[in-house]
């Protein structure tokens, strides 16, 4: 049976925790709004770029650009985009779980963004070849360095494909861990399935005629594909960041609600104990008085 003092102490500590989680919730909510808007605004551009290039890949001659075909090597490069900080629910755990269950064949090498990704992969004893710190909010220039690294790696021909593992942002309460193929160019889903499959089919049917390229197919691809890689990477990072802040906001909201419930229960118990103590005291006084008479 805990004493009233113990309960008072617990109430105090729970109250402190609630205050902290509440503060974190508010911070995450403010960041979430921004991150969500950013992700939503860029999605259309990245999707359209992807759609066009996938269609062009179908109609282009073979071997016109290395990004359209698998590399000669047998290795796979996987970029994992996770968060820097914890306390964001099961976001990183789910992503790593997805990665472990994904069964990418052959030797896999990893590149990471975010501390939680490198830590998690180290724990799983995976081969990590590079880790890039990216600030929050993410700057395009930072992503460009990552993009350059990945493209250089792919162009060596040691890797057959480049995959990206990140959390796709659907809405504030739903984030889906996904693994998408960045290179060679492949249909990519960003922010959930919003009729992307149908539209790409419709586009394919309309685009079967041969394209004219100006000044030439090779030149066009040479300028556009690096942009595509960086742009898509940036959009994926934005999705991951939107997921992170949303997930943290929800996690912190739950924590605050739980703390409040706990406070309620504890105060009830505390008051009951106090009442019992008072009743006891009164009883003692009255019995003592009756014994004296």
């Amino acid at each position, binding site marked *: 049976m805990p004493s009233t003092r113990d309960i008072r102490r617990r109430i105090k500590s729970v109250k402190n925790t609630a205050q902290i989680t509440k503060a974190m919730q508010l911070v995450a909510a403010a960041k979430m709004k921004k991150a969500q808007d950013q992700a939503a605004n860029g999605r*259309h*551009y990245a999707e*359209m770029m992807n759609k066009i290039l996938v269609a062009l890949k179908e109609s282009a001659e073979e071997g016109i650009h290395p990004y359209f075909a698998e590399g000669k090597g047998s290795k796979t490069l996987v970029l994992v985009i996770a968060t820097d900080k914890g306390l964001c629910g099961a976001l990183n755990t789910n992503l790593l779980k997805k990665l472990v269950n994904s069964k990418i064949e052959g030797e896999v090498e990893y590149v990471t963004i975010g501390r939680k990704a490198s830590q998690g992969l180290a724990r799983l004893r995976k081969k990590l070849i590079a880790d890039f710190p990216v600030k929050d909010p993410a700057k395009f220039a930072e992503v460009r360095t990552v993009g350059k690294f990945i493209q250089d790696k792919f162009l060596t021909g040691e890797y057959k494909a480049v995959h990206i593992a990140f959390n796709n942002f659907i809405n504030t309460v739903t984030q889906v861990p996904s693994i998408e193929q960045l290179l060679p160019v492949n249909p990519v889903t960003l922010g959930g399935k919003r009729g992307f499959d149908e539209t790409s089919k419709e586009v394919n049917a309309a685009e079967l*005629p041969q394209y*004219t*390229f*100006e000044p030439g197919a090779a030149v066009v691809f040479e300028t556009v594909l690096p942009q595509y890689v960086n*742009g898509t990477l940036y959009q994926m990072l934005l999705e991951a960041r939107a997921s992170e802040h949303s997930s943290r906001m929800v996690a912190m909201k739950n924590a605050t609600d739980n703390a409040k419930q706990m406070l309620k229960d504890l105060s009830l118990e505390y008051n009951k104990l106090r009442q019992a103590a008072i009743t006891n005291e009164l009883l003692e006084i009255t019995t003592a008085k009756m014994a004296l008479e």
Partner: protein
Amino acid sequence: MPLKLEIVTPEARIFSDEVDTVVLPGVEGELGILPAHAPLVTTLQCGELRISKSGKTTEMAVGEGLVEVTGAYARILTDMAIDVESIDEKAVEEALERARHSLESLKHGEHQEEVAAVMAMIQRSTAQLHVKRKRRTV
């Protein structure tokens, strides 16, 4: 058959409507696109883009990007697209000045990537000024 034009930047979908014709700055010079144009893919350079729809012409300053034309569609993916009305000449001039300044300081170091980024910024600003000023003299 009308031409469906879409202009998209990483920030937003700027334009999406049916138009009569669009004139855009391709890498090989200005390019007029009419409905039922032959399928074409080309890259865009910084400059002026004109859209005409039922006699009215809209002018825009655009950055580098990709253009994809099929018979019924023209899709423009670019890193900048600003309506001439909303170009703030003074702000652009300041940005241009800043960009030139940082280019000067970058030249001493070996930051190829950053130099490229600043150069792109200068080109975009110049294109905006060009579109805006041309309009005023008319």
